[in-house]
């Protein structure tokens, strides 16, 4: 008998029932809700149903909250205000946990979950947001679902799913100077494509992954959905346990010991088989910048925008032409010659304390040439950054220090690009119009975003780091 993967071990422990046709009813340990989940609650009200296990749902507003003022009336749109306020009423009426607007624990759901110890190894978790894959960094199965599925989870604490295939991506070697988890995942997506992981659950493994901090692993797993997969997982280890211990919703005392003993059984067995294996060597990974409208359109900062004429595949050639046209770039242009109008440091990808430290290290003592927003992932991240003096480093460098939320990643709160404007953004999607109609988004790491703010164009952050 062959061994089991981390994925299989967790999945099998959550099967309520499995039908002959392979459809599985899964038990959901914990569910995260956000302001954008309003239509799922509305559906529940319409059906006249309660939340089956209110203690297992945790809500916080993030998608629509303002970042320049604590006053919700500062939101440009009355509908957005209504949505942010609705989460309080939904939480009160249905009895679920809430970290409301103004609470220091409020923030982006995918930052709050791990931070509060809601996210734990071995759990089955869901959230009505595709970036729920983030939480797999702690060694749990966490996946994004639609609003109907959210309503189903609220009403039944379960979800029907078919078991995905498994894929292991091993990143071997040691990350080079200036290369971060963001560069690792952008390199992976470039390698396997935005549909490379479709229908699969991805386990990240290898020396470089084990060496990542928890923040780095969260960044990595966050963008798993950009590789087409709903699940990105890293096996729990000492880094995980150190991160989890002592958090408000994590087990403590004797329970901690029992949990720990269980978690240690979770990593994939040595003889476990994956449906697909991909191996990457760290030597190929350097600071990345995306140039197109798909996260797979990524290039090293020292590289150039591709030339469609050099592309043999006609579909690919057409796609590159379309992207260059939308992005206002010319074939063969050096990435470093691309000037930016706005910089965004934040999002569930890169709004944790380590991300802010990396950006601040570059910004320190320098001056931003373009508007730069720094949006911490939660009130607690913001407080910690302020204790460390990062807010002052940013503001002295001309960066704007904002309140926690999704902000310019989804551009729902007024933080956005104008048509034709170009951003260096630490978010996860460079789709057309993602940061505002006609806006042009380039995805980068926090340090690379800070470097672009300082110089006004994409810059190899390693050069700025070496100056120190």
């Amino acid at each position: 008998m062959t061994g089991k993967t981390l994925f299989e071990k967790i999945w099998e422990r959550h099967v309520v029932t499995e039908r002959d046709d392979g459809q599985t009813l899964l038990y959901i340990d914990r569910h995260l809700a956000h302001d954008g989940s309003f239509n799922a609650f509305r559906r529940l009200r319409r059906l006249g149903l309660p939340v089956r296990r209110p203690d297992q749902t945790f809500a916080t507003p993030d998608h629509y909250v303002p970042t320049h003022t604590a006053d919700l009336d500062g939101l440009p749109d009355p509908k957005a205000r209504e949505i942010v306020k609705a989460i309080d009423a939904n939480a009160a009426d249905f009895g679920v946990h809430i970290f409301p607007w103004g609470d220091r624990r409020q923030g982006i759901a995918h930052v709050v979950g791990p931070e509060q110890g809601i996210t734990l190894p071995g759990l089955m978790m869901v959230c009505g947001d595709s970036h729920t894959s983030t939480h797999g960094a702690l060694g749990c199965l966490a996946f994004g679902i639609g609003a109907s599925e959210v309503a189903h989870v609220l009403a039944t604490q379960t979800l029907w799913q078919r078991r995905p295939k498994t894929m292991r991506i091993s990143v071997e070697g040691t990350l080079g100077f200036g290369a971060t988890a963001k560069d690792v995942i952008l390199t992976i997506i470039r390698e396997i494509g935005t549909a490379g992981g479709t229908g699969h659950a991805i386990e990240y493994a290898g020396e470089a992954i084990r060496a990542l901090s928890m923040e780095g692993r969260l960044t990595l797993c966050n963008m798993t959905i950009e590789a087409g997969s709903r699940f990105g997982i890293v096996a729990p280890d000492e880094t995980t346990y150190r991160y989890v211990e002592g958090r408000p919703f994590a087990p403590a005392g004797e329970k901690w010991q029992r949990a720990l003993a269980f978690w240690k059984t979770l990593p994939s067995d040595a003889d476990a088989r994956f449906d697909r294996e991909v191996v990457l060597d760290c030597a190929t990974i350097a600071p990345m910048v995306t140039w197109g409208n798909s996260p797979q359109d990524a290039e090293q900062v020292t590289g150039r925008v591709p030339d469609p004429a050099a592309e043999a595949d006609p579909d690919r050639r057409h796609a590159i032409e379309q992207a260059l046209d939308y992005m206002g770039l010319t074939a063969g242009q050096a990435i470093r010659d691309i000037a930016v109008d706005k910089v965004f440091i934040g999002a569930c990808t890169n709004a944790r304390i380590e991300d802010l430290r990396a950006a601040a290290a570059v910004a320190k003592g320098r001056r931003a040439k373009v508007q730069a927003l720094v949006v911490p992932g939660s009130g607690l991240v913001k407080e910690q950054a302020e204790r460390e003096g990062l807010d002052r480093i940013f503001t002295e460098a001309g960066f704007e220090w904002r309140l926690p939320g999704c902000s310019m990643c989804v551009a729902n709160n007024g933080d956005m690009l104008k048509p034709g404007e170009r951003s260096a953004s630490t978010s996860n999607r460079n789709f057309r119009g993602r940061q505002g109609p006609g806006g042009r988004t380039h995805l980068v790491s926090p340090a690379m975003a800070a470097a672009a703010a300082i110089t006004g164009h994409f810059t190899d952050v390693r050069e700025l780091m070496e100056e120190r």
Partner: protein
Amino acid sequence: MEPFTTFRAVGVPIDIANCDTDQIIPARFLRYLPEDGGGYDRYLFHDLRFDAAGDETDFIYNRAPYRDARILVADLNWGCGSSRENAVYVLVANGIRSVIAPSFGDIHYNNCMKHGVLPVRLERAACDRLRRQLHDRPGAEIAVDLVAQTVTGPDGDVYRFEIDAFDKERMLKGLDDIALTRQYDPQFEAFEKKHRELYDWL
């Protein structure tokens, strides 16, 4: 949910690979729901269909007879990206009942099924062929038969597709998931009791 058995309608080719749900419906419209009224159908492909001044572009879905299409034939990785179910509400608001593509974003695929929109996976060559035929013969119809699991192209060629048996059953009967799941309550109670004993630290 409206059941899906067979459906025949004009098809529109959407020649965009990796068409993400932000293209299907931009995020700034997610605050509205179809029941709010106000021309929800206009949000479909909004930023592809309308320029900055709000004027119609030459995007194919703006053009007759494609504007009346109720079946989309798309390219690789249709509906990737955000989990927004609004990307399905807006298809329904336009009367679209089926999307045929070589591959789908996993979340969007599941979302479609909740609203009686049948996602059909066909091989890439078949999708390319169908799109070409729809370009060559504007207004041509496609038939989708869920019972037989077939798509019939404008030229009468028949393509078979695969679908999960449970998904098929739910679509054919228009079953509501929550009501169906409640039938498993005894299994749920038994499972949860054991689960809570095993993982009492949770």
